[in-house]
């Protein structure tokens, strides 16, 4: 337990719950008559309301992006390396908003919420929400906060897809978009990984077709496997090699089928802690939202045409060892923006951490983001 919080932390934070009674029609055709969104904010909204930054979270993220909920917390929010006073997304300049997406399991309405029609948790009956649905629900939050235009919408991975969708669907509502380790759509290989994860969850005997809450159980084995698989693909071969090598847990081979290597122990620990804090139905839903994202589909696959409405200036970043959202996928985004003549900056960060690099304090990455955000901050005062 830390005696005091770090000086560059946003400090102790607490979430706010927004209850929305205006129905939202989802892309799948279904409607949620009522829903809640949980969010956190850091920093102060200026008088002109021109300094707001929206942070969009990735698959297993939530609204707690920075700071601590309690002095007892061992870890800060998931993107504390980038958000805080004096950090890349400097909370002395910006009013930072981060919400748990619809369909999540950390406080916004999702599969673990009570379905008013049945008085039971929605479970698998919760509608599949898409990236477009998320962005739509995020506009409701923006309206509630009185933010007509974000200084920037920022996201990595699945969060980057939301940021991209913002720039396409609501071009006047953001001045900058930061697209980090993301893609304009998933590749077949990516969808395949997601399908293995879903199969692991659904084939767990405790899954009960998604109604595990009614059976007072959790598909721990399946969700754990899904997380293990995900974790492997978010790291690189080099990163795992550096972290674990072939180090043995007890120094000797046991000649049984238990844990011999440190990497096995690490994966088991990661998966067992994950299953206690994350909902399996939400995991299924998030992977579907990833698979379905393909904004260019409406334009016959023509990404430049899809991006035609985009007005926001873009900073695109990728990481050399990221093989789930490889630099080539960022090139597709950048090339489409270039062919439209948009303002875009693109950096390919040398990093061995794989896809997870976007959450790491990599000096060059943070230097570029910091400098970019300083310009965004300058513009806010000019607004």
């Amino acid at each position, binding site marked *: 337990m830390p005696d005091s919080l770090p000086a560059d932390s946003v400090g102790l934070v607490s979430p706010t719950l927004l209850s929305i009674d205006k129905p939202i029609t989802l892309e799948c055709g279904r409607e949620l008559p009522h829903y809640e969104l949980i969010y956190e904010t850091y920093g102060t909204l200026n008088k002109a309301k021109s300094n707001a930054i929206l942070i969009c979270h990735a698959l297993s993220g939530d609204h707690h992006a920075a700071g601590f909920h309690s002095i007892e917390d061992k870890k800060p929010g998931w993107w504390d390396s980038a958000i805080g006073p004096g950090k890349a997304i400097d909370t002395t300049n910006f009013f930072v908003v981060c919400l748990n997406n619809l369909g999540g399991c950390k406080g916004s309405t999702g599969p673990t919420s009570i379905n008013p029609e049945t008085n039971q948790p929605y479970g698998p009956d919760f509608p599949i929400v898409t990236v477009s649905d998320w962005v739509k629900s995020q506009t409701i939050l923006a309206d509630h906060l009185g933010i007509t235009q974000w200084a920037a919408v920022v996201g990595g991975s699945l969060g980057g897809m939301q940021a991209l969708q913002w720039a396409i669907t609501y071009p006047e509502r953001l001045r900058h978009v930061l697209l980090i380790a993301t893609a304009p759509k998933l590749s077949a290989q990516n969808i395949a990984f997601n399908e293995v994860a879903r199969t692991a969850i659904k084939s767990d005997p405790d899954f009960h077709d998604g109604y595990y809450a009614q059976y007072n159980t959790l598909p721990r084995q399946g969700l754990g496997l899904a997380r293990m698989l995900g974790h492997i693909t978010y790291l690189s071969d080099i990163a795992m090699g550096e972290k674990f090598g072939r180090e043995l847990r007890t120094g000797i081979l046991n000649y049984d089928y238990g844990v011999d290597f440190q990497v096995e122990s690490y994966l088991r620990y990661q998966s067992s802690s994950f299953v206690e804090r994350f909902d399996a139905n939400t995991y299924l839903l998030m992977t579907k939202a990833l698979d379905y994202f393909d904004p260019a589909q409406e334009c016959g696959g023509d990404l430049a045409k899809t991006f035609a409405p985009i007005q926001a200036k873009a900073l695109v970043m990728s990481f050399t060892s990221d093989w789930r959202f490889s630099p080539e996928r960022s*090139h597709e985004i*950048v*090339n489409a923006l*270039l*062919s439209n003549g948009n*303002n*875009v*900056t*693109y*950096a*390919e*960060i040398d990093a061995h951490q794989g896809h997870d690099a976007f959450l790491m304090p990599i000096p*060059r990455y943070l*230097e*570029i983001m*910091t*400098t*970019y955000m*300083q*310009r965004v901050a300058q513009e806010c005062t000019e607004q």
Partner: protein
Amino acid sequence: MSLRLDLQIISDWIPDGARVLDLGCDDGSLLKALQQRGVTGYGLEIDNSKFADCIKAGVNVIQADLDQGLPQFADQSFDFVILSQTLQAINHPDFLLEEIVRVGKQGIIGFPNFGHWQCRVQLALGGHMPISRTLPNAWFNTPNIHLCTVQDFENLCQSKAISILNRSIVNHAHKDTLGTRLLPNLFGQIALYQIKKS
């Protein structure tokens, strides 16, 4: 801050409001200077160590490997494509030259002239690869893998049906002298060309 002299010459060749692509834009200083005259466009750079400078200067910089050509850009989509002091470090300079005049209505190319008399003397009499102010590296650690002379460059342009619209061949202080005017391939250290597809 004043521009490096070769960049100043290039800047003088570019009219206000032009759309440019700066290949190997380094810290973005040329584009920054050009922006003050309403020039827009992008800088391409393989090394991101000076990206913060580019961003500070408000320059759109794209990390890209010029050895891959310019496939991301459409034909004739820029008024000028600039390649300054980089041609000699490219794997396939002939291919990049074609790309430059494909993407740009005009190209501006600057390179160190390997035909300068000092280079010739060092090789002919000294028997070693030339080292000079414009070519400071030893043969084994130089990024300059495709050095050429003024004559070589002009021959390449001719063989690729590229016309030379303008040239400025100067000494290391970027001054033109009697020597650089009369015998540019012998007395010129820096060569700058304005070219287009014939």
